[in-house]
């Protein structure tokens, strides 16, 4: 176990320089974006050039880039202050936090849905390789992987609207927004929720299904399965061992899934009018709200690293071979 502890400590320490390098890359990229926060006001006759200059001064945008970067970094290190949003004039941390609830909720639900659907289907396909259903699931999976999410969202909404389905866009009907929780509100949520879950989840389901199927096929043909059979174990026990072994690589995929669900669904969230962080981030990008963009990117980077670390830890706990190596 001490091996594992030192492994975790090492990984945590490595995260510090990694985050630092990522922050530099993010900053350079946001700097390279042409224009700045004030560009959007340049052709507004209500806003005089003096006002723009005053704002530039107030926001510190007149300072050189490296100065702004180190100031931002210093405040994070010394005060854990990720800076202010230029447009909302509030700490970016608060703004991101306000929008985290539904983001995490929908992400976790989506991941849960993906696993609940993809794993059993993958197992079924592997044990019934080249059957009609296997082909059909594979076809659907490929379509799911290749369809852009926002497009699927539009198609689903189009059909739903045309069939007279009213619960489209957002997570609640206007009447339930802000109302205290009740059974009716929960039902209303479910009526709205299935479209986003399908849209955001479907490419992940396809991918997971393919991985599960391939892994299991590899394992089924491995020598130890032949040995198990040779020893006379019944088929269901053999299958149980096969599935257990095939699940291992999926654990590392799970670690990668979290940041994907956070950042990979921005356009779909805009189209579906979801109150998640994606559309908010997109707006911040367009408005050059630099510290908000940076902090969000850093958050994604952090989640990715933590996700990887958790995956590695659970893999080590699950698989003695990795632990010993």
């Amino acid at each position, binding site marked *: 176990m001490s091996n594992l502890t030192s492994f975790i400590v090492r990984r945590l320490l490595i995260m510090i320089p990694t985050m630092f390098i990522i922050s530099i890359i993010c900053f350079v990229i946001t700097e390279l974006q042409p224009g700045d926060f004030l560009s959007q006001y340049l052709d507004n006759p*209500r806003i005089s050039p003096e006002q723009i200059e005053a704002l530039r001064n107030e926001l510190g945008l007149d300072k050189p880039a490296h100065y702004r970067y180190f100031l931002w970094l210093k405040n994070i290190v010394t005060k854990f202050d990720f800076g202010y949003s230029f447009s909302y004039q509030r700490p970016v941390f608060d703004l991101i936090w306000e929008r985290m609830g539904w983001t995490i909720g929908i992400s976790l639900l989506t991941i849960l849905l993906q696993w609940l659907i993809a794993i059993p289907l993958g197992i079924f396909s592997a044990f019934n390789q080249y059957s009609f259903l296997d082909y059909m699931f594979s076809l659907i999976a490929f379509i799911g992987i290749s369809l852009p999410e926002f497009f699927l969202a539009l198609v689903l909404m189009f059909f739903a609207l045309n069939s007279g389905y009213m619960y489209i866009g957002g997570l609640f009907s206007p009447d339930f927004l802000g109302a205290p929780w009740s059974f009716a509100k929960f039902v209303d949520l479910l009526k709205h929720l299935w479209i986003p879950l399908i849209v955001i989840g479907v490419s992940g389901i396809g991918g997971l299904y393919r991985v599960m199927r391939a892994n299991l096929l590899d394992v089924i043909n491995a020598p130890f399965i032949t040995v198990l059979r040779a020893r006379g174990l019944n088929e269901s026990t053999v299958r149980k061992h096969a599935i257990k072994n095939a699940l291992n690589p999926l654990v590392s995929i799970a670690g990668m899934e979290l940041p994907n669900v956070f950042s990979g669904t921005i356009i779909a969230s805009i189209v579906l009018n979801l109150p998640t962080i994606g559309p908010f981030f997109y707006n911040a990008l367009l408005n050059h709200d630099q510290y908000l963009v940076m902090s969000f990117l850093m958050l994604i980077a952090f989640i990715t690293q933590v996700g990887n670390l958790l995956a590695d830890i659970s893999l080590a706990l699950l698989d003695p071979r990795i632990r010993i190596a």
Partner: protein
Amino acid sequence: MKKVLFSMFIFLTVVLMAADFFVEDKMLTSAPQPKIGGTLRLALPSTPESFLLYGSLDSSAYSVIMGPLMSPLVEYHPITNEIRPCIAKSWTISNDGRQVWFYLRDAYWSDGKPITADDVIFTMQYFVMNKYARGNSVDRFTIPDEKGVNKPITWTKINNKVVRADLPSPYGAFLTSLTAVYIYPKHKLEPSIDKNDLASVNKLWLSNTPASEIVVNGPYKLSQVIVDQKIVLERNPYFFKKDLYGNQLPYFDKLEYLIIKDPEIRLAKFMSGEIDYADVSAADYPRLKQLELAGNSPYVLFASQPVGSTPSPVHIAFNFDIANPKLKELFRKTEFREAMEYALNRQRIIEEIYNGLAIPGGGLVLPTNKAFYNPKVEQLMRPFDLKKAASILDSLGVVDKNKDGLRDLPDGSTFEFTILVQNQPKDYQQIAYIFSDELKKIGVKTNLQILDSSVVGQMFGAGNFECGIRAFGNQPDPQLRKAIWQPGQQLYYWHYSTMNRNTTPPSPVFAEMFDWEKKIWEIFEKAQIEMDQKKRKTLYDEWQELYYKHLPVIFVARQMNFFGANKLLGNVVQSKEGIPTFTVWTSYRK
């Protein structure tokens, strides 16, 4: 509890009996028996960044504040655009036009405190004339005195209900400019201002302020903010407007804004009846109208002649200060720009891009703006005539010398220029395409440069373009567009050498101006200090003619306006000119 409620009720009744109500116009409250109560639902593209108008430059904040939450001293009549009383029940102007007294009505904040002269002075001092406030209006309320020195308009409290404005010189657009000054409560805000750091006002009433802290004087007060989903306003029981029949306004109990970023979803929600009112584009109008005519839509659509500030009328500009000396010489010639106007096929643009639902020109002042429009410009617009365009170019020596099918400059090099245009809205680039297509027919080579709007704005601002397509919204009073149309100003971007940026504020460079530009410059100066509206109109008439004659920019077209309202909304009225009007305080659900 009952006792408290009862005494509150008594207090409210007493206050309302003492209140000095503004009785709303018959045009807006024509229904004698409106139904009171219910919820009005509108859409917003994002959560407002602030609830302080002067601390923000956010258009969602503007939508919620200007009208629904806050009231100005004087306001535009929603239909006729005349200036009428609001918080000020009347005003008087001194004979020399340099002093204006405003008499405030007996009206109350949403917390029951009276609205006084102190609130007006406070708003002016800490917000409107505070150069550190993001949304300040220092520029609009600083005007030259008779010696030409810029001075601020000052405000003095005469007594609790009277304030006086002292103007350095008469200022024709003074009341017009005041319509955008919304009055904020001193008693609520002053304690939070750091007097040593006037930029601190920008941090007041941000999006996370508790609703109960936000004290207003508009028809509704803030009740709930559900981040990125919904803003709920509820009736302000102290609002000072009544209808003709004695009902206190607004009619609705609640006004909800659903936050919907994507315009398609907004439209879908409007079509399904979830949202009560929507602006519709020329591209969507035919489809929606069909559904309405088929009889199964929950809405009615209105089409009107162009009105309001958006969608902005598009124009084409040639850079007078371009670095290339040969192009510069050409672009500065009025004949060249005339040739370009002859080559501009407005009819084709209107048919192909706007489904026929636009008017030619439409720049400067809209035809529906009776106070300032000069109909003469319609005759001054040069009709589409490629032959004429070609012959003018011939006479300027821009002819095809090497017989490659393209016109050449007098020195033999190919004549070509780049048209800079932003990628959104789509009609801008479509106009660029049609313009360039017609020019090709007379041997003029053009290159299209389509870029993201923020980049394009910067390029225009730096004078870094050859030919550009751009648009600025209309305003009811030309004075409010001075920063664009007067030579030597910040947005006179096609001829920036008329502005000396090394002085603060920038000053005009007369040596760089053409005679007609000097004339335009003078017109704006004269009209600004003219209080007689008729004389102002005569001055601005001449300004419009000068623009259409000398073509500093060529106006292309302006879309008509399309609105949709839920069938069940009452008091959505259409004026004689076809302009539908809808206010959040006079509409009700049938």
